[in-house]
């Protein structure tokens, strides 16, 4: 428990890892309101029993496979933000994910909130690996025109011109390095200069990230699943000290219209173990204190199950995890009373932009309002800043 306000941090900068659960995680079966009889009225087939739930208090408990997260919670390192959402919920995965990515529920935007964060952290674009995403392609959250961000599908094989090998690869990389020199061009060739500069940045990013696996050794054995491997990659890059401040990882499959019971067991089992391995790895290297993880999903699911799974809903829940997190339950668990529901969904009572604002202001030391497109009340006391 590292909430000691005088803790020396060696001038280290706070790091944020965002973990996206794609498909609409069923919050009601993640943090289960087992103490409310209505829960069992609505969740006749996919409900988690009182005996199985990992009790947090006399009302709610974690899904039974979340044993590692439960112990981290017991150590005070997990904050559960209940009833999170935004006004006029959109039940399209893609639109709702966009809203979370751009912090813009009403208008369409192509500026990602983390893209803006990266620009704030490194306005001079001095470090091309300030933001690194693991997964297939850069998430819109990290995209901002003119702001570099790196997207890695697998760290070990990450690189440029990767379909070539051996001598051909070395020589092609030489060629690339020489071809993408951002030299001065005559008027009208500005675009070639831009491409040259971006090529140089990309190569610098590749060269920096490539060093990470070689510098890394750890006694922690991560699972073989993609999420574990992504978080292992995050750990490797973080531990390599490359100055990355924003990490992104994704885990998919949460769209449980059917086979919810089996699917959720698998997914949350993976999340719980992967997150536990990740923080254990960081602790082993005395590098955990700098890192806070934010876990979110684009929406929750309907209160009443459909006989085999649950359909798209609105209000859900999010998590913040880390040793500088002041663990516990935040916000109210939305009422299951039909009169309180919004067309069959949980009524959100915490705006996700409040959570973003909390992370920005209390963790990353960035003024939140221009990042989240407005002023939102923060959650008090969830995070203990490194500088305090």
């Amino acid at each position, binding site marked *: 428990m590292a909430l000691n306000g005088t803790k020396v941090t060696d001038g280290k900068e706070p790091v944020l890892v965002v973990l996206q659960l794609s498909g609409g995680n069923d919050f009601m079966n993640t943090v289960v309101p087992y103490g409310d009889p209505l829960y069992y009225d609505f969740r006749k087939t996919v409900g988690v029993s009182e005996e199985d739930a990992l009790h947090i208090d006399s009302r709610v408990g974690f899904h039974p496979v979340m044993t590692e997260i439960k112990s981290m919670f017991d150590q005070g390192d997990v904050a559960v933000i209940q009833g999170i959402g935004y006004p006029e919920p959109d039940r399209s995965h893609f639109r709702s994910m966009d809203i979370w990515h751009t912090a813009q529920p009403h208008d369409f935007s192509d500026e990602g909130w983390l893209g803006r964060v990266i620009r704030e952290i490194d306005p001079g674009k001095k470090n091309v690996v300030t933001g690194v995403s693991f997964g297939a392609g850069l998430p819109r959250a990290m995209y901002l025109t003119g702001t570099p961000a790196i997207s890695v599908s697998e760290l070990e094989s990450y690189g440029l011109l990767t379909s070539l090998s051996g001598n051909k690869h070395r020589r092609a990389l030489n060629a690339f390095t020489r*071809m*993408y020199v951002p030299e001065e061009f005559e008027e009208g060739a500005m675009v070639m200069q831009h491409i040259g500069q971006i090529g140089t940045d990309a190569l610098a990013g590749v060269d920096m990230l490539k060093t990470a696996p070689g510098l890394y050794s750890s006694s922690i054995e991560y699972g073989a699943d993609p999420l574990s491997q992504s978080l292992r990659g995050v750990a490797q890059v973080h531990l390599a000290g490359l100055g990355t401040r924003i990490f992104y990882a994704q885990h998919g499959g949460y769209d449980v219209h059917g086979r919810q019971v089996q699917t959720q067991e698998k997914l949350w089992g993976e999340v719980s173990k992967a997150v536990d391995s990740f923080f254990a790895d960081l602790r082993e290297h005395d590098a955990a204190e700098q890192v806070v993880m934010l876990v979110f999903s684009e929406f929750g699911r309907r209160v009443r199950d459909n006989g085999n799974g649950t359909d798209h809903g609105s209000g859900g829940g999010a998590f913040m995890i880390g040793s500088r997190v002041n663990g516990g339950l935040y916000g109210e668990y939305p009422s299951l009373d039909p009169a309180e529901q919004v067309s069959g969904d949980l009524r959100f009572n915490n705006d996700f932009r409040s959570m973003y604002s909390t992370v920005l202001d209390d963790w990353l030391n960035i003024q939140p309002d221009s990042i989240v497109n407005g002023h939102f009340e923060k959650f008090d006391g969830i995070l203990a800043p490194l500088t305090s």
Partner: protein
Amino acid sequence: MVDEDRRIIAHLFRRAGFGAAPAEIDAATVVGYEATVDDLLYPEGHERPQEDLLERFHSEHCDEESPRWSALKWVYRMINSDRQLEEKMALMWHGVFATGWAKVTNGQMMSRQYEMFRDSGLSGFGMLLQKLSRDPAMIYWLDQHTNHADAVNENYGRELLELFSMGRGNYTEDDVRACARAFSGWTMTHVLPRYPTGYWPADFVYRAEDHDDGEKTFLGETGNFNGDDIIEIIIRQPATGTFVAREIYKFFVADEPDEAAIEQIANAYFVNDFDIREVMRFVLKSDFFKAATFKRVKSPIEFIVGTLRLTGQHRDAYQFGLAEVPKLSRMMGQEILNPPTVEGWHTGREWIDSAFLVERVNFATEKLTDTEAPGIVDIARHLSDTRTSISSADLLELCANEFVYIDLDDATREVIAEELSIPEEVACSGDEVIEAVAEVLALIGASKEYQMA
């Protein structure tokens, strides 16, 4: 040196289509530039690609409800259609009238919209706007189904003026209001969630009882206007001519606007009674078009499809991995049928960002080093048919000038020549020539110049 005729035909195919293999350029050079333009302008003269096989062979992706299937079908057509300009026009209008499945969610509605752009992309601009205003995906995308006689939703009315025709500064807020009123009652048959019944696509429906038939004053004209009357007024506005000209210039000619050329295109728009086919004929035959070689950054989908048309991959339905194509385009920053906003994609240099550039370069080199790709095999065969050996310097010249049709900067040419690992003299037989070709193409594909079209 490149043969100038072939060079300009290659340019035409890169712009009015998704690029062409050397044999196609040879054939077009025989009939000549002007005739090739005229042929491109009449897509009806060619069959569309056969798609039954696509559905059978890619049955694992064949889900009519899914926008991913819509995107897969479209990229198959981009790669294979002999009606190249038709697909290119559809891509342009998709970027202008940007509609995304993030909100629409229904694959069939997205397909129908794109097919409308494909079928009407060369028609009169008025006809195109009429169809756009009746398109269910667009109606849902811009909330037009909530535009009622007694409760006006201005979203579509506003974007029609701001983003789909004249542009800001050419109308007042009163015009927006009048425009929106004229489209009240233009709606769709139903809005249903996917579950539990599954999607079926909505159709356009006009509800006279929900239409505000009162008098409206729009851009200085007064009458009991309905939507089509508004469109008639819009297409005659000078600002609309400039808008259409600018979009066509940006998409077909160059990233950097040339105001004089845009004015000429706008003039062609009015002279030809708003007919897009004739505007395109003017553009493709103009000197400014012919002079604009490599003045555009390839969009991700142009980059991908152009490379595949060169290597000859996915040119029949029996090849796995077609679903990768739209996915790769997304990873490079352009998710087909799902632009980020109603403003479409930011084009030009904004396509090049560090994460996207890595994807582009890796994709191009992967495809261009595939020694089994039909296009690469053809190039090697052509070489072994015509000579017994070739110097590495000549091979580079030949690949750049006659196979890829790219203007390499002298510095780039020098770097590639120095970093090639192939023998100084390449035997034009067996594996040696094909591997040499692949390596040369890969380095060309990794160049800055290859990012441009």
